């Protein structure tokens, strides 16, 4: 055995921990490139397309604003403020969720905390980890925004400054998130799921109320509405909010006032460093208390068992034969017991609800023009499709792969393996239809849409649900990752990428057909019945969606039947 070396008790081990993480990352990158160069290229290309798309969108927006210098002077700082305040909230929650999982929920924590790693080093490592994992969205969204903005800048120094502002800003939500994660474990360990759900609910309710108040249309008095809107938005320009330091600093940099910009950069960086130091100090000082509370303070998770028929969840799937009903009911119950899943869907639909609730009545805004009144339902369809695609790619696609470790259970059911896919499909359709059809009916009522077009839009909505659920379940069965227990990794894997591309392609076809039908009907007046060709195009859109979904299911079922359990 090793000669007894005096353990350097309390020596800093942060460097070693970072080096180990970097080595782990290096191995991961090598492995990814070796195993799937095509996938890396496809992902990079897709990322580039997203970046370019965002850049063009922001570039056109700013160009439009520049045409009216007076409005640009007022609007651009507001855009920045709004962007960074949203980022502040999103990143704080994102950091809190990631930090909670990595501080209190992983085997790595138990391993490192039973070794002589000082708590401060452990907490610092986890702080940086959550910072990196949570902040990629800011980089994805922010860099195209800033590049588009840089086109308006008078000096190339702006490029360096905007990067510095980003780096200075990111630690602020990171520190707040770390502190929130620690506080959740320390003070609410028994109610962590309920607390998280309540926090999400409160934020959504606040956004809904505030958004409704801020965005409410004031009839034709657009100037009054704009004044009211700016007045309400001034709350996010409070001097003590970090988003204001960044937004003001970037605005100064944009206009060539570099000394002012550097002052705000200094304020942001100093506060970020102080908050980071404070959060790491507080969390590491009382980390053992929070860890103990997180490990022992949770509820037992005891729940009454559902009856053999599947209970209330089983009733929803009463049309399925018993073994499949149980599988679908199990998936629904798992979904409802996982706040990470339903809260994301809730947030997406709440945002959609906010949008729907603010739609002006077309009869008053657009007069008697029936054709134009179809454009907004068409845009609703596009928005809804994106929301549904997000859900099916993120949560429905991994369903089959997640059965990997338990395939022996469902493999022994008195049903063909491919029939199990029907249960997964039924579950996915139930969840998506519940939200999508509901949202479309609300939209149709608010827009006072004709009955014919209401029926058409509902049929297309259902066909989009079939397309997306069919793709997610079918491709999930064709390219499963049975050895991967993590939902995120399954969704981001090779099969997940194929599913994302296939879903987008299929939905795009449906939407192009519907776009054409909408275009053909632009001269219709309210109450007019569309011509036969338009109706045929709509039917073709429905057929494309349903046909695509069924085709994907068939491919998945054919492969799934051959899988050895």
């Amino acid at each position, binding site marked *: *055995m*090793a*000669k*007894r*070396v*005096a*353990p*350097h*008790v*309390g*020596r800093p*081990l942060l460097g*070693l921990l970072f080096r*180990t993480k970097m*080595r*782990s*990352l290096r*191995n*991961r990158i090598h*492995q990814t490139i070796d195993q799937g160069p095509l996938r890396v290229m496809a992902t990079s290309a897709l990322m580039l397309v997203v970046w370019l798309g965002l850049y063009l969108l922001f570039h056109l927006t700013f160009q439009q604003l520049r045409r009216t210098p007076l409005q640009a002077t007022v609007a651009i700082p507001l855009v920045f403020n709004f962007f960074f305040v949203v980022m502040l909230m999103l990143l704080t929650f994102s950091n809190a969720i990631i930090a909670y999982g990595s501080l209190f929920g992983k*085997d*790595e924590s*138990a*391993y490192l*905390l*039973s*070794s*002589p*790693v*000082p708590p401060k080093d452990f907490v610092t490592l986890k702080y940086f980890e959550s910072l990196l994992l949570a902040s990629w969205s800011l980089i994805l969204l922010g860099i195209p925004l800033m590049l588009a903005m840089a086109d308006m800048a008078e000096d190339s120094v702006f490029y360096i400054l905007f990067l510095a502002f980003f780096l200075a800003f990111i630690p602020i939500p990171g520190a707040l998130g770390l502190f929130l994660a620690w506080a959740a474990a320390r003070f609410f360990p*028994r109610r962590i799921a309920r607390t998280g759900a309540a926090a999400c609910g409160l934020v959504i309710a606040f956004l809904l109320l505030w958004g409704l108040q801020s965005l409410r249309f004031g009839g034709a008095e657009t100037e009054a509405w704009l004044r009211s809107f700016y007045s309400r938005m001034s709350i996010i320009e409070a001097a003590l909010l970090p988003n204001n330091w960044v937004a003001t600093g970037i605005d100064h940099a944009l206009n060539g006032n570099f000394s002012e910009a550097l002052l705000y950069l200094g304020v942001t960086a100093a506060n970020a460093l102080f908050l980071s130091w404070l959060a790491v100090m507080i969390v590491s000082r009382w980390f*053992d*208390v929070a*860890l*103990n509370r997180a*490990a*022992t*303070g*949770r*509820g*037992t998770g005891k729940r009454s068992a559902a009856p053999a028929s599947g209970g209330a969840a089983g009733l929803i799937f009463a049309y399925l034969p018993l073994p499949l009903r149980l599988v679908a009911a199990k998936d629904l119950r798992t979904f409802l017991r996982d706040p990470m899943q339903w809260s994301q869907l809730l947030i997406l639909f709440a945002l959609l609800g906010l949008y729907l609730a603010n739609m002006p009545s077309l009869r008053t805004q657009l007069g008697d023009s029936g054709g134009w009144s179809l454009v907004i339902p068409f845009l609703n369809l596009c928005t809804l499709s994106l929301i549904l695609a997000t859900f099916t790619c993120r949560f429905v696609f991994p369903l089959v792969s997640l059965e990997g470790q338990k395939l022996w259970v469902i493999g022994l059911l008195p049903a063909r393996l491919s029939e199990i896919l029907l249960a997964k499909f039924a579950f996915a359709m139930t969840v998506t239809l519940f939200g999508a059809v509901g949202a479309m009916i609300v939209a149709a009522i608010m827009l006072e849409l004709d009955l014919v077009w209401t029926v058409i839009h509902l049929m297309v909505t259902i066909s989009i649900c079939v397309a997306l659920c069919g793709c997610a379940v079918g491709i999930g069965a064709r390219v499963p990752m049975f050895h991967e227990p993590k939902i995120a990794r399954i969704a981001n894997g090779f099969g997940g990428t194929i599913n994302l591309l296939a879903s987008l392609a299929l939905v795009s076809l449906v939407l192009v057909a519907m776009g054409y039908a909408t275009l053909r009907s632009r001269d219709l007046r309210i109450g007019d019945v569309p011509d036969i060709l338009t109706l045929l195009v709509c039917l073709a859109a429905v057929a494309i969606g349903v046909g695509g979904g069924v085709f994907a299911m068939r491919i998945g079922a054919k492969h799934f039947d051959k899988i050895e359990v």
Partner: protein
Amino acid sequence: MNVLEDSAVTLLGITKCYGRTVAVDDLSLSVRSGELFAFLGPNGAGKTTTIKLITGLLRPDRGDIQVCGHHIGSNGVAAKAKLAYVPDQPFLYEKLTGREFLYFVAELYGIENRRRDEVLEGLIARLAIGDFLDHLTESYSHGMKQKVVLAAALLHDPTVLVIDEPMVGLDPRTIRAVKDLFVEHTQRGRTIFMSTHTLDIAEAVADRIGIIHHGKLIAIGTLSELRALARHEQSLEEIFLQLTEESDG
């Protein structure tokens, strides 16, 4: 010598609750230096909770714990420097190779590179881990992971080795090698605190055995002392069943 001075692990009146459930109830025991202590109990008896308390992953609601004379609560880092913990689910960084993980552990405990290589050579041979040590650990079976984790735990020659179910997933040859390593470890004056359901292993290598049931220590002693307590010349399995049933009664 004073009992406490000779004690590597000391638990004094430890109580730990999960909500309303009492997992460990007023537990006191002392494990001496150079002793292999086997901690037995039915599922949910409080074995893993006790181990997590000893390693500082949990804090007792009442009582005091010392490892090598250091209070685990107030002087945790010093206590942990003398400790190695092998959990029931072996942890390895999945994107590191086994060798990279072992180098990480060596550096964590401040072992010089030359010394590390010497020790590793012996452990690689005895645990037969050389064939896969340069592969990413994500490709390992449970048994392979367990072997690497055991090597990592023994690498820094810990004064106290706390181990939860050490033999799960190991093949018979490795079980034999691990038993020999444990005996050699204690012969050098080191202490092993082992929780297990494999009673024949406890019977073969343990110096003393403690049986916990419903969070209470219901019996402690050498195998012969336990036989006397059970009033029969029986195997450890029969003694265990009898004592836990009596405790239920």
